[in-house]
């Protein structure tokens, strides 16, 4: 909870004011009852109607003041509370987007989303709805006890006798319900994650008749969540009635002692009656506080979860004193890079250097580390040994943002955001003009795709790019990279779902638009990699061959094996088939 204090910055005055307002509100409520005592003793039992009238008038005035103060309290606390919530939500999101890929590949998406939504909402609920109750009751409790002691200290002490068990009960409740709530959060997060994963993979779930199995898994999680909710409710159901019961016991004690004191004439009937009401004011906040306490508990549990993200150190981030990169000339140096996702290295000492404006191709069997290299070039991971340098700057020493802005990457499985085709192309360069967007689209043939779709470039794209064919998604993401006008371009199997003639079109566009830029092409089609000045063959995380196509073909090595697929072998195969 201490974390939340940070967001109060600049609102301390309002916060202080709200404490005053809360105190005023509590005073108004308890004061009202002291007035009632006065009315009974000095007006009713003293047969003084005039006094009664005056006190009633004052009483109404106090109530009106209380009304006003409480309205202020609700509004003021909501303002503060929401300032905290939005600060928290933003910070959490900012922090998340700064975390490195390793974090995202280890957490389920649904789990992370639950933090940003239901957990922050839990905190928000407490702050916007719980806070007014909390503040006014935290004030009310001591105010009522004080008023009770002022009214008659003997009765006050008698009624305070039940406070120890009440407090003990509250302690128990806090402890048990906290644990229960944390567990509850875990279970609902598991349910969320299950739904998220099945919705994302629904095509396969259905195609393989997996519905029953998924339903069964879900049912188990849903049931576990239900059981835990029930348990939490049970704890609450025990607590409130018990407090209520203690309240009545206190009243019985007060009545008993009060009747004796009254008989001895050391107590007025008005005081006795008022004591009963004030007792209600003592126990009502206890109840309401515990009610809020439930919210507080789940908010506390939610904060624990949120903190687990906020405490996550981004693996990749600017080192203190990192320099912004000037415009790159595009010299890319991969120097003895060793890298492991887990224990076993995926890259074992990879070295190569692309001169400014050079175009290199990476080929090799799938799963041997090509995409991993691309990720290291994008600095999604840092090498365990060795370094990646651009223009002689180690990537770890430069400001990440200034580097990535000069980098264009087209991923193997491109992601499109909901919006339009145009807004997706513009993603990497939000200030691009419509003409620039159209030019980029036309260069790679997105315009022809768009022409088929309703709305052209303004065609609605849904989350993830649903509603487009895979090849179309790739085309759009290439246009996006082109528009970014990168100094270094990495194409990771960017055209794998695109037909060869379109790919040729794209290659021409790249040649024209990216002349002088450094580029790395990862591809399997031989015709695609042929463009490169130099081809690097990756095998088991090492570069086993490098050189121009012609030279590699003349060597007896992996490349020939890869190339062989297209050369020579075909005809015999076709002949056999035919």
């Amino acid at each position, binding site marked *: 909870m201490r974390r939340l204090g940070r967001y109060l910055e600049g609102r301390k005055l309002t916060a202080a004011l709200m404490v005053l307002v809360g105190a005023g509100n509590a005073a108004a409520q308890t004061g009202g009852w002291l007035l009632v005592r006065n009315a009974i003793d000095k007006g009713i039992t003293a047969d003084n109607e005039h006094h009664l009238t005056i006190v009633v008038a004052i009483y109404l005035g106090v109530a009106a003041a209380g009304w006003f103060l409480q309205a202020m309290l609700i509004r003021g606390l909501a303002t503060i509370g929401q300032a905290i919530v939005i600060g928290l939500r933003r910070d959490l999101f900012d922090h998340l987007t700064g975390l490195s890929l390793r974090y995202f590949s280890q957490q389920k998406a*649904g789990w992370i989303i639950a933090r940003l939504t239901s957990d922050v909402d839990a905190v928000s609920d407490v702050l916007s709805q719980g806070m007014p109750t909390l503040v006014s009751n935290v004030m009310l409790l001591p105010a009522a006890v004080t008023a009770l002691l002022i009214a008659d200290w003997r009765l006050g002490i008698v009624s305070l006798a039940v406070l120890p068990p009440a407090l003990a009960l509250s302690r128990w409740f806090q402890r048990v319900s906290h644990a229960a709530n944390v567990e509850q959060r875990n279970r609902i997060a598991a349910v969320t994650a299950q739904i998220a994963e099945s919705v994302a993979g629904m095509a396969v779930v259905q195609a393989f008749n997996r519905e029953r199995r998924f339903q069964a898994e879900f049912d188990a999680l849903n049931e576990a969540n239900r059981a835990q909710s029930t348990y939490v409710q049970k704890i609450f159901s025990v607590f409130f009635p018990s407090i209520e019961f203690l309240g009545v016991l206190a009243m019985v004690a007060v009545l008993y002692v009060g009747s004796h004191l009254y008989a001895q004439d050391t107590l007025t009937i008005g005081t006795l009656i008022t004591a009963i009401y004030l007792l209600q004011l003592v126990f009502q906040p206890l109840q309401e506080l515990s009610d809020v306490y439930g919210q507080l508990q789940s908010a506390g549990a939610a904060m624990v979860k949120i903190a687990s993200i906020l405490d996550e150190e981004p693996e990749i981030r600017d080192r203190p004193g990192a320099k912004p990169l000037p415009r790159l000339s595009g010299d890319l140096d991969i120097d003895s890079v060793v890298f492991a996702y887990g224990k076993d290295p995926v890259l074992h000492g990879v070295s190569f250097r692309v001169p400014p404006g050079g175009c290199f191709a990476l080929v090799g069997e799938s799963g041997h580390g090509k995409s991993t290299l691309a990720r290291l070039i994008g600095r999604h991971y840092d090498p365990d040994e060795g370094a990646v340098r651009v223009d002689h700057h180690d990537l770890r020493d430069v400001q990440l943002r200034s580097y990535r802005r000069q980098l264009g990457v087209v991923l193997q499985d491109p992601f499109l955001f909901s919006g339009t085709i145009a807004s997706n192309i513009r993603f990497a360069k939000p200030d691009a003009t419509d003409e620039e967007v159209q030019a980029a689209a036309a260069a790679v043939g997105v315009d022809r795709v768009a022409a088929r779709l309703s709305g052209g470039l303004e065609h609605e794209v849904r989350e993830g790019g649903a509603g487009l064919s895979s090849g*179309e998604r790739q085309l759009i993401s290439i246009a996006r990279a082109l528009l970014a006008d990168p100094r270094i371009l990495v194409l990771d199997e960017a055209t794998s779902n695109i037909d060869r003639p379109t790919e040729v079109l794209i290659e021409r566009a790249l040649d024209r638009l990216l002349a002088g830029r450094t580029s790395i092409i990862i591809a399997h089609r031989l015709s695609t990699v042929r463009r490169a000045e130099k081809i690097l063959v990756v095998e088991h995380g090492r570069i086993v061959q490098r050189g121009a196509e012609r030279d590699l073909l003349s060597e007896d090595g992996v490349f020939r094996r890869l190339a062989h697929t297209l050369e020579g072998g075909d005809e015999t195969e076709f002949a056999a088939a035919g």
Partner: protein
Amino acid sequence: MSFVDPSDLGLLPTFRRLLRLWRDQWRLGVFGLACSLAYTLISTAIPVLIQQAIDRSIVHHAQPLWPYLAIIAGLAALRAVVNFNRRYATARIGVRIEARMRELLYQAYLRYPRGFYDRHPTGQVLSRATNDLYPIRYFIGWGFVQGMQSLMMITAAAVVLTVVDARLALYTAVAMPPITVLALRFARRVAPISRQVQERKGDVTEAADEAVVGIEMVQTFGREDDVRGRFGEKAEGVRSTVLRQAGVESRHLPGLYYLPALSIAAVLFFGGRQVIGGHLSIGQFVLFETLLLQLVWPLEALGWITNLAQRALASAGRSFAWLEGIEALPEPARPRRLPAGRLDVRFERVSFAYGGEADVLHDLDLTIEPGEIVAVCGPTGAGKTSLLNLLPRFYDPTAGRVRLGGVDARDVPIAELRASVALVTQRPVLFSVPLRENLTAGREEADWDEVLAACRAAGVDSFGPSLPEGYETLIGERGVNLSGGQRQRVALARALVTGARVVVLDDPLSAVDTFTERQLVARLRPALAGRTVLVATQRLSTVWIADRAVVLLDGRIVESGRPAELVRAGGPFATLFGDEVVAA
């Protein structure tokens, strides 16, 4: 309105459906209401006893005090038990109905056609089965019975007060009309805003989901600030609506809290005079005040509950609209079994369009003989995936039909159809379970030897055993810890394991290197022997696997024949593979 996007249900129909869910729990419900009644009676009896105690034992010593106190303590103990039971019973109803609604939704999600998912972002689908259910749970698990109890408390208090002193009771009723007006006004004003709050929260979920799933893209282009800005806007949307809600609350709630002071003042003023005049005992005076005090919370609660009820009905209205308005893929009315043995596949004059858009496939005829392997080639966006997706009935053709073994796909029970058609989607989908379970997802009882054979045919054997824990390695969500080509091979092996008679491969080797591809093409032919196969591909090297290739252009088949012949023919096929053909 379309069949995948029905409009929300109205209040009344929603209410009826909620009531039906509630009726499933009627035992608990009736028990809860009975407890409420008992609670009300005890809570009214206690102040009456206090009144008697004050009048008879404290002010006048007509009777000893302790029996009263004993009875009050006893009743209080009883009330605690009753109250526990009421709370627990009603809370359980809420929790159960929440779980039940979620179960129903999830069940429905599993049956919804692809068209539904084309239209609704994951975040929305998710939030409807999570956040959206909370108002329903609170209303049913608390609001409904609490509301009934509030009404009972008010009635009981009114009866007792009227019996004691009808005229004074009337005076104290002075606060009732404004409270009622205020409570109703509050409910009316706050309901639309709280609905908006709910919607804005949905927007936040959507924004969060997209950013989390697309994080690599965001980071690669250094566009964190943009998505942060986008997310910030959504968060700001929540904030401003919550603040508006607080505004409405601040204008109404304190009133609900302090208006009863009017009644208390009325009792003080009029009751006090009557006490002075000797028409009312001091104990009765106390009774009036105590009962009024007891009404403060039930009255305040009424305002909350009306609000909650409206939110719950709105949420439930949305959920029920999905549950009832969206048709799952229809099962055949008179199901027919697929014939035994090899199956042929016929597309007969098939046209297809995605909901409301232009035709993607036009009047297409294609026959795949039993055991034949046909490659579907064509430029990006020609409709290959759309054609393939008709086989497992992800979509139904808008005209014409798809027949397997002579039976219209729509006449085959869906589970049987899908068990007979194994699919490899263009974007491989794996689940976060161990590799072994991913492989056997299509047929859990598969023999491990068969699985290994499939792994060999699909090339999983070249990396599976060397993963950190071999075939027991946990695959990350969406297969993040595998390379693209590895994911594809797992998906391919998974399809082979099913042993289905028809196999649909959508660009299954696009991320696999040519060398592995060549090996696989050689190994796949025997593995696929006897099965009818439709394979879409962009690579000439994959086309080899096929007996016959067809070229799809703008949703029409423009060429068909043996691959080798097509290469020589120099038609659309040859153009499509361009320099690859030249290389060959």
